[in-house]
């Protein structure tokens, strides 16, 4: 499918950059996954904030740390009707949307790719992989963790 101007329509919604999330997105350009860390209560914070929602520490207590990229699926579902979801990135095929818990203790939404979508399940070990966005940033996706480098 092409638009009237001949451009291929964007297959992936490109996320805006929130007020506190610049460092996160900059690091994705190099394939590095960062999470905010509260040095006051020693816990991870996600999504990025100027405040720690665990201990109410101010933004000055938060720093960026590299995440291992390893995570466990918390819950996973399969979209069986990508057209109804107005999603093009799967090429019309069913795809998996999951919430994954990073080793650093924070949870994020993602797509798990690299296996049939209905094989993704709660408790499954996954590891980060990257999908380039048009502006050079990369979107963190996850794939089954086979113990091998991507």
């Amino acid at each position, binding site marked *: 499918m092409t638009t009237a101007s001949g451009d291929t329509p964007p297959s*992936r*919604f*490109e*996320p*805006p*950059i*929130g*007020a506190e*999330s610049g460092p996160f997105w900059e690091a994705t350009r190099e394939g590095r996954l960062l999470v905010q860390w509260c040095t006051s209560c020693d816990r991870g914070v996600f*999504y990025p904030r100027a405040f720690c929602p665990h201990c109410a520490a101010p933004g000055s207590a938060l720093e960026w740390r590299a995440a291992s990229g390893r995570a466990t699926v*918390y*819950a*996973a*579902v*399969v*979209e*069986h*009707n*990508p057209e*109804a*979801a107005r*999603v093009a*990135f*799967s090429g019309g095929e069913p*795809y998996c*949307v999951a*919430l994954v818990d990073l080793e650093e203790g924070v*949870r*994020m*939404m*993602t*797509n798990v790719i690299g296996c049939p979508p*209905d094989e993704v*399940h*709660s*408790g499954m070990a996954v590891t980060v992989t990257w999908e380039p966005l048009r502006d050079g940033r990369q*979107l963190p996706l996850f794939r089954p963790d086979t113990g091998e480098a991507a």
Partner: protein
Amino acid sequence: MERADRTLRGAAAIVGVADDVSPTGELDRTGRELEVAMVLDALEDAGLTLADVDGVCHAESAVAFAEYLGIHPVFMDSTMTGGSSYEVHVEHAAAAIAAGVCDVVVSVYASTPRSDRSRRRPAARRVPPGPNPTVEWDLPYGLRTPMGPYALAAARHMHVYGTTSEQLAQIAVSTREWAALNPRARHRDRLTVADVLASPLQVSPLHLLDCCLVTDGAGAFVMTSAERARTLRKPPVYVLGTASCTDHMGISQMPDLTTTPGVVSGARAFGMAGLSASDVDVLMGYDSFTITALLHLEDLGFCQKGEGGPFAAEGTLGPGGGPLAMNTNGGGLSFTHPGMYGMFLITEAVRQLRGECGEHQVEGADVAVAHGSGILLSVMSTAVLGTEATL
């Protein structure tokens, strides 16, 4: 005085209700015309007039609606918590009335998504104000809303507690049995568990028939003090307990996908009422999806956490004299669902307690709970309602 000792129990009552739905799913009227009609019908039901109204609740703008009505209320509440907005309005109105802020409050809702589509009217678009982290962190992954987040909750519940699609389907089946007794319901044909499971998977594990309808619908209610309520046209339906709670906005931030903030709102509302789940005759539990209703059964204490599947699978939530009647109008699954269904939990609960429900009347109903769920399992609001006998 401790918070728990300060109570709204019995201070205010719902004295008028109105709603408009159609078995076709479409209404002729829309917008302000429909809202005003609902307000006037609910006031007529109470034996009051617009001149009596000094409080307005409207989930978009109470101020704009009051202006349209040409009234000058001293209490205005534009609380918008999605589908639970109207249970929150009950709570806020009861508090305002009890505190002497105002005397007669109306809350109103009208939405016509189905006819907007078929008549090519521009669809109403509600965008939450302020920064919305879900746009940055969730939207790129293509989780269809609203059903996707509920599917995640169902998947997690299945993983932790072994809940099955068959058990979820039974909720749709029991709810349809109630709809069959309600001539105003959108869908009244017999439904089986096999039918639900054979309907197309949307976002797995949810099938099409695990999902609520999209219909037009409108409603309003009127509240006043218990004292004034006793002078009006219909038997008062007293607010015995009311409470709300939120623990997230976006689904990624929900602390535990198997437990809603209804645990908090339910315990507080029942605590204020001095009642528990076993006292409830009619549960109007927001059923945007089968999993939504299942979570309410657990979180309000009708069964233990994790036992909602087997509890629903007994099939006793439908008509037939079981200990608990749930969603007696046919629910969001089969009666109507215009987007923010919480108004219809209240109109049905009130009519059950007045004995006005005809074929789907629960005999001798004295206690009803309207339990609203808003946004993405984000805001639960519980109203425990009772007849004069429960005071």
